[in-house]
């Protein structure tokens, strides 16, 4: 008898608690809707951007002084400064092509600014800002290599990074190329320098960064894809997406964008940067 009483009491407590939890849950979610990302981030005191640590010129951890620098890093710094008034609120987290989407959806990072090509498939899992860089896939080879274009890659080993679209693109254009996917671009480049593979393929911007690191290597071949980069934002944070778009438009208008572009790529930013674009393969280009 006593036991039964206890059981009923326990059961009612559990029910009450779970009901309360339910209702408070609901309250929280409406709250979250009301509170914008800006307040949320200011409360947290950190705006967390996922950037590359291995892609020279975009996001690269300099072994000399251990700081992360690059075009995308500067853009994120400028965004933090303009939006929150304090550049120190920016926290940079390393992402790779493989990890970045999961880190964004899990809330580990607020945005991805990591040489991320906008594709229809990726648009399903995240929202993208306007295009801030237009890259094209190319090849990096040792100077004097017989490889001059994609058609020279039959039976050749070509390195790239896991999770990137580059491997698939290459296969779509030349199915006789042997694609080897490494954990990141630094390892792919090291494999090229060690003579283990014959070429590295990915966006020309990243490849230019590698060629700058070691002048024995050069970017060759026509660009065989059009790869627009966008800042990825979780689908829940529409207001953050809006702020990011406004920021990019503003910087392009007031010349800050061009200034940063020039700082990293040594030339003026292209005038005809599209606002919206997705990955395009151009298998027809130059055979």
């Amino acid at each position, binding site marked *: 008898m006593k036991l039964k009483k206890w059981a009923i009491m326990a059961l009612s407590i559990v029910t009450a608690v779970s009901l309360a939890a339910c209702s408070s849950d609901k309250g929280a979610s409406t709250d979250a809707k009301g509170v914008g990302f800006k307040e949320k981030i200011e409360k947290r005191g950190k705006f967390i951007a996922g950037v590359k640590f291995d892609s020279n010129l975009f996001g690269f951890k300099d072994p000399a002084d251990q700081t992360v620098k690059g075009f995308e890093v500067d853009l994120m710094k400028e965004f933090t400064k303009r939006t929150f008034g304090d550049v120190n609120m920016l926290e940079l987290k390393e992402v790779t*092509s*493989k990890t970045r989407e*999961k880190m964004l959806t899990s809330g580990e990072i607020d945005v991805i600014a990591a040489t991320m090509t906008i594709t229809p*498939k990726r648009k399903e899992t995240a929202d993208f800002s306007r295009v801030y860089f237009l890259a094209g896939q190319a090849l990096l080879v040792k100077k004097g290599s017989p490889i001059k274009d994609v058609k020279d890659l039959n039976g050749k080993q070509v*390195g790239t990074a*896991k*999770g990137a679209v580059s*491997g698939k693109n290459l296969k779509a254009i030349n199915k006789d190329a042997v694609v*080897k*996917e*490494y*954990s990141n671009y630094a*390892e792919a480049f*090291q*494999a090229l320098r*060690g*003579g*283990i593979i014959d070429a590295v393929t990915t966006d020309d911007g990243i490849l230019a960064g590698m060629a700058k690191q070691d002048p024995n290597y050069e970017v060759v071949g026509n660009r065989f894809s059009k790869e627009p980069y966008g800042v990825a934002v979780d689908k829940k944070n529409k207001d953050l997406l809006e702020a990011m778009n406004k920021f990019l438009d503003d910087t392009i208008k007031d010349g800050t964008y061009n200034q940063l572009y020039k700082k990293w790529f040594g030339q003026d930013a292209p005038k005809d940067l599209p606002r919206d674009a997705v990955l395009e393969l151009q298998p027809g280009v130059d055979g």
Partner: protein
Amino acid sequence: MNWDFGFIQEYRTEFIDGFFLTLKVSLTALILSLIIGTIIAIFRISSNKALRAFGTSYVEFFRNTPLMVQVFFFYFGLASIGYKLTDFWIGVLGLSIYTAAFIAEIIRAGIQTVPHGQTEAARASGLSFLQTMFHVVLPQAFKLVVPPMCNQFINLVKNSSILSVIAAQDILYVGEQAISEYDPFSVELFVAALYLIITIPLSQGVNLLERRWAKQGTR
């Protein structure tokens, strides 16, 4: 959770190739590590000081450094001095040398449980050191160390996933390709199942062997 196994169809041939690469690398490394491990174990208990020192350094070095570091060392290191091995042999080499350090210790422990009187008796009856080892000591030692050895072999199969970091297309490598497009949980579950297909028969086989040897022992 939204399970989605559509990737199996798309990556079918890759998974089959990956499965056999993992299997072949594992089996080759298993045999090689057993051979290297036995040699190192004999070094470790030999009366020759130099051999003993070599055996000890081998075990301490390879047992106490990460496998990934060793594999990267072979992969990039050998290439930089002009030796180009295939991914298969880099994997076999890295895994055998690493696993052999553990196996050597297991075999050494096994040898030490064989009563010393037997060695003395064998030597007294005119057998050489190596003959004593191969005809008297090792057959008994091997039977004793079957369970811990089995653990090492299972570890070896799982460690073979290191192949994916040198871009060799093993089970995990194909899985990682699939993950970039499909539900990660479904892919990981499938990858785990493929490893189980190799490891479960391995442990069952060793169990069977153990039972058979145990029966022989009581006869």
